[in-house]
């Protein structure tokens, strides 16, 4: 779908409490456009709890249940079961989309149990993790999604551990649909939400959400940083359905050799949270470690891609 075909209706109303350049509200706009009005929303404790604006008004124009931090998956199970009852009784003509909107703290850390439980029950809902790679709402503390070497207020010299990969954990649950998305690729994101809407069962979409105050870059660079993340291989775009992973948009182009990986240094230099890797002196070791990991992943994917093409050639060759 092209941008001009996106619905015009805004279900996130202007004049909210979101920071300038907020990736959360930017992501919500695209998601809501793809899902439409027939959606029940639950917002799990996160920046979105705040930027929807305080009582007695709200920037969210969908029926919304704000819920406690660790409840995302379970809330969806309750909403979905009740919606099934209302459909069975004829109160609702069709089942609304159940959408849970959570941050990386509510997904990677405190909420992973409820999410895993809901996925195992194959609760019929879309779970969105907008991942700003830290507890931004409480002032940027490390989370399970914070990348290696990133500064946060409780990893002042850079996080010592590598982030975990919840999208892959969700793939391992065998749910019908898992996708990752980037703000810089709105048509790719929109298509993934539209695809998710068509499917029944647990669907998981994770959006990388570069946070200007948390990651320390100017508010005008939200999209630029999101794009660099994909171009450098720090964030990968794919969708997983029927046991098969398909890489999409910028990530697909790199794997297929249409574009080259941007050195990760460019991505790191764009953000103050990695500033200590460059000042007062260059931290070759950690920059090298990060680049090496990315290279390893992409070399493998590129090799697999070439092998597949090669195998296809053999299969398609006419019999002699």
């Amino acid at each position, binding site marked *: 779908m092209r*941008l*001009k075909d*996106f619905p*015009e209706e*805004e279900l*996130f*109303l*202007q*004049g*909210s*409490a*979101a920071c*300038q*350049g*907020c*990736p*959360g*509200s*930017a992501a919500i*706009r*695209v998601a809501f456009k793809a899902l439409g009005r027939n959606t029940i929303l639950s917002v799990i404790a996160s920046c979105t709890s705040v930027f*929807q*604006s*305080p*009582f*007695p*008004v*709200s*920037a*969210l*124009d969908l029926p919304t249940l704000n819920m406690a931090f660790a409840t995302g998956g379970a809330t969806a199970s309750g909403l979905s079961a009740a919606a099934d009852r209302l459909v069975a009784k004829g109160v609702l003509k069709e089942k609304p989309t159940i959408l849970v909107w959570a941050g990386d703290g509510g997904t990677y850390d405190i909420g992973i149990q409820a999410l895993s439980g809901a996925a195992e029950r194959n609760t019929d809902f879309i779970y969105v993790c907008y991942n700003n790679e830290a507890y931004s709402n409480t002032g940027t503390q490390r989370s399970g999604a914070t990348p290696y070497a990133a500064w946060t207020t409780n990893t002042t010299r850079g996080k010592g551990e590598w982030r975990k990969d919840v999208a892959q954990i969700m793939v391992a649950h065998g749910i019908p649909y898992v996708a990752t998305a980037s*703000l810089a690729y*709105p048509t790719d994101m929109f298509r993934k939400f539209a695809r998710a809407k068509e499917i029944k069962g647990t669907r998981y979409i994770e959006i990388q959400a570069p946070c*200007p105050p948390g990651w320390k870059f*100017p*508010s*005008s*660079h*939200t*999209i*630029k940083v999101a794009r660099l993340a994909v171009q450098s291989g720090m964030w990968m775009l794919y969708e997983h359905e029927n046991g098969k992973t398909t890489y999409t948009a910028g990530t697909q182009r790199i794997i297929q050799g249409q574009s080259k990986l941007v050195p990760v240094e460019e991505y790191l230099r764009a953000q103050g949270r990695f500033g200590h890797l460059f000042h007062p002196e260059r931290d070759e070791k950690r920059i090298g470690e990060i680049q090496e990991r990315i290279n390893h992943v992409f070399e493998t994917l590129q090799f697999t891609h070439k092998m597949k093409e090669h195998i296809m050639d053999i299969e398609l060759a006419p019999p002699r």
Partner: protein
Amino acid sequence: MPKRKRKAAEEIGFVTTLSVPSEGSVGLTGSWRIFVPVLDAERCNKCLLCWIYCPEACIGKDIRIDYDYCKGCGICAEECPRGAITMVKEEKKQ
């Protein structure tokens, strides 16, 4: 606030934390702005990237900028592939 929604709120006759969807839920956020986006309509090819990237839904599909709510983040100017939007220091409001 649309009438329909106000009515729904009034029907709830007891106190609980129910909020009504509203534009300007924290007021006219245009007052947050230091730099203001200015569109050069001649250069604009209506690619709609600014429309979809704006985190505050302040640019219409007709590329009209809503200065009441634009927070001045500068994403539209940064992302415009034609350089049709520039950020200029806002005149001090009276």
